[in-house]
Structures are given as C-alpha cells and as structure tokens.
C-alpha cells in the first residue's frame, strides 16, 4: 500500500534523476526502511553541538 515513504521515494527519484522501475520498488523501499531505522538509532543518541565530524579516522 502506497504511503508517505513511497511518495518520498518517487519524489527523490524524480528530483535526482534516479532510475526506478516498478519491479525495483519493493527492494529499494525495503533497503531504505533498514537505512532509516538504523539512521534513527544514531539520530536518537544525543551529541553535543560542538562535536566535529570524523570523516576519516586518525589518532
């Protein structure tokens, strides 16, 4: 059943000129759901405003 996430997928695919055939949609959606679930896990963790990104690791 289509919902806001399907709307989001359609909108981003159009905005970014990403190919998206109907057969691919279930797998793309399933993968995006996993990513968003994991992203929220990170997002839920409070970090101070002044923490800097670690784009690469070094000591």
């Amino acid at each position, binding site marked *: 059943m289509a919902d806001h996430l399907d709307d989001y997928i359609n909108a981003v695919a159009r905005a970014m000129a*990403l190919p*998206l055939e109907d057969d691919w949609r279930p797998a793309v959606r399933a993968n995006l759901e996993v*990513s968003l679930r994991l*992203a929220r896990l*990170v997002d839920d*963790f409070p970090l101070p405003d002044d923490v800097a990104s670690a*784009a*690469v*690791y*070094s000591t």
Partner: protein
Amino acid sequence: MPETSAFMSAAEIAQAVSSRKLTALAVTEAALARIAAHDKVLNAFTDVTADRARAKAKAIDAALAAGQSVGPLAGVPFAVKNLFDVEGLSTRAGSKINRDLPPSPRDATLIERMEAAGAVLVGALNMGEYAYDFTGENVHDGPSRNPHDPTRMTGGSSGGSGSAVGGALVPIALGSDTNGSIRVPSSFCGTFGLKPTYGRLSRARSYPFVASLDHLGPLARSVKDLALAYDAMQGPDGDDPACIVQSVEPTVPLLANDVRGLRIAIAGGYFQQNVFPEAVEAVARVAKALGAKQTVELPEAARARAAAYIITTTEGAALHLDRLRQRPNDFDPAVRDRFIAGAMVPAVYVDRAQKFRRWFRAKMLELFQSVDVILAPATPCTAPKLGQVNFTLDGVELPVRANIGVHTQPISFIGLPVVAVPVPLEPMPIGVQIIAAPWREDIALRVAYALEQIGVAAAPAPRGIGA
C-alpha cells in the same frame, strides 16, 4: 631438489628459493597447476596471469643465480582481489560495468611492493560486486566457493581471496575490508587475515567503495606469512591521501615476543548477542588460551554498526551515482537496489553518523587506556550455504546477508587494527577478531602468533576440493 607442496608457507618457500633449493619457476608452476586443478570447483580466480608469473619467476631465479638478493618473499605466489589494478587488466571490482574500462597502465602500490620483496603475482580474484557484499556471491562471475565445503559461502566481499588461501592455491592473497571484507572470508574459509589501522597501507590504484572506511590487507595460512606480507607492504605513499607518512615498523621480528603481561579482554554485550554456539565456543577457546577473563563493553556498539551502515550506503551510492543513472541494468539487481536506496538517505543522517564516529572513536581510545587487546567474534556463524537467505537463532529468523558483518562493522568504523584468527572447529572453521589500539598491528599479530603456536588457531587443510 625438493618438491614444492600446497602447504609450504610463504616463509618456507622464500627460504627454499633464496637458498636455491627450489626455483621460483618450480614454485610458480606448482601454484598454476593447483589453480588449474581446483579452481573449477572454487571459482576463486577471475584472471590467471600465468605468462607474467613465469617471467617474474625466471627473473628471480636469474637474479639469484647472479648472486643478487631478491627479498623476504622470494618466489612466493600471491593473488589479489580484482579491485586491485593489475597492469594490462581492466579493474572489474566484481562488476560487469568496469570490464569496459581500459587495461590498467600500472599495478596497485601494494602489488608493486609485494613484487619488490620477491613475490610473484599469479592472478586476480573473484569478489562481490563493487565490494558491497558479505557473501562472496557474484551474479556475473558466479560465487566463489568455500574450500572446506563448496556448497557453502566463502564470505565476502574478498571471497576469492578467502577461497584461494583457504584452498591452499596460494599462500598469500590481498583483499580489501570496508566493513569486514577481509575478516568475514577469513572466518568462513579458515584463514588468518589482517585489517590494518586505517591509513597504514596504501590503497593507491585500487578501486574504492567507501573511501573513509576502505582498508587493504593480506590473508594467509600462517601468522608469519601474514606479517611478512604486511611488512613488505608498509610505508608512505603520496598516491593515497589517507596513507600515513610514517616509516616501516617491522612486525616479523616481534612475533615471538611474550604476550604475558598484555591486558586482554573479551568484548561483552553486543558482541555476545545474536551469535551461534560455534562463535561462542571459538571466542571461549581463544580467551582460555590467553588467560583472558575480563569482559569489556564497547560503548554503543550497535549504534556504531548503524552509523557505519549509513556511511557505507550513502558514500557507496555517491560513488556510483552516474553508473546508476546510465547503466542500472548492468548492476547485480540486489546491489543496484541497495545503492539506489542509499542515494535516498537524507544527508543530515550522514552527518550525524560522522559526528557519532568522532564520539565513538574518543570512547574507544579511552577504553584502550585500560586494555591492550579485545577479543570478539569475526562472524556470528560458520559459513552458511550458498544462496541461503535466512538463519534461525534462538527461534528467531534473521536475514543472513545483513547479519554476517554485525561484529566486524563497529571495529572498522574507527579503523582499529584487527587480526582475524581461524579456530578450526568441526565441521567448519570460524574466526575470532584480535583487536588492538590504533597503529598496534604488532600486538594483534603477536597474540595471533601465540595462539597459532599453541594450536588454538590454525588454517585447516581444505577438505572440499579433493586436495
């Protein structure tokens, strides 16, 4: 002159070739013969560079005959995951699309360094498409197969590397590890594998996946061979901006140093959940042998894994954005769909993941004030069957692909050095991660060597190829 065998270590080969008890050409021919005999089953190799290997071997033999020194890897056959540039080959990185690239004009830095130490490149190895894989399966080239049971996965994405070394076709192979792609095949195929500290070994002229997480390193059948290859490949390289400017720190002379006195702990919490009894048994054997009783908690390890996942899927998608637009039907469909989804993750989540990375790094450095080594499973299970989608653990059905790397991802997330050691359980081996503080590969290798000396860690002889 003695005969060469599949189970001669690189150290033994180099000693025999250097002292002219064996010729490099004989060793090379034996390796090529093993590949011809067994690769139909293992499907580890995508390219066999026989002519180049014979020419290199003859040059080594000629140099030795002329009284010249050849190096610590004299005559040692090795192979590389096919994301390393090999002069004259298109760097396919497991893909169909990259086969259209022109032949590489020059070898990857690590190949040059291995050959400068006397090693002989015999070919390029199968891998998961664009390294976005934990299984070793590949829709274009077919799956690499496990040398202990060819109906099982090698693990990925350095699947051919695990298969070729685990199957004793070559004593050393090179792979890459972004989230576990050296450690997972090492675990499933029963080999030793080293993922060095991020920035230690040059990645120049290798095909990237996630630049901020990509590492290169060796797989081998013994710790000494692993260290010999690692030592040969160290050193700064201006062609890789992440490679540290630091002189070589040899590890081979340190391997036999006493490990008593090292503070060794077992990773608890997250690393003891969702694991099969085999993984528990392997960690317990290693811990007992080392006298490790303390358990430590890696702070927020599940979030570290989640953040690594987000950075991987988005950076990977960014790398392949043009190819996704132009040639979507030439990808493995499963890989394509993951990359398209990755392109749709909001950027704010990526920045949060990178900031969390800084936090996690700081906490882990604090932890290494009180321990020298952390032990953790390399994989939650032994090698699953090829094509297996789910496994059942404690009555819960879980997806295989998504769970294979749960214990490796939090570690590579912050670039810590790890040696994966094989514990030869029956019927299949499984790996344990020996994790050290940044730049302390020497400690991880020493512990692995000690485990090998007492027989707790060993690369089992392959049983799946009729060798």
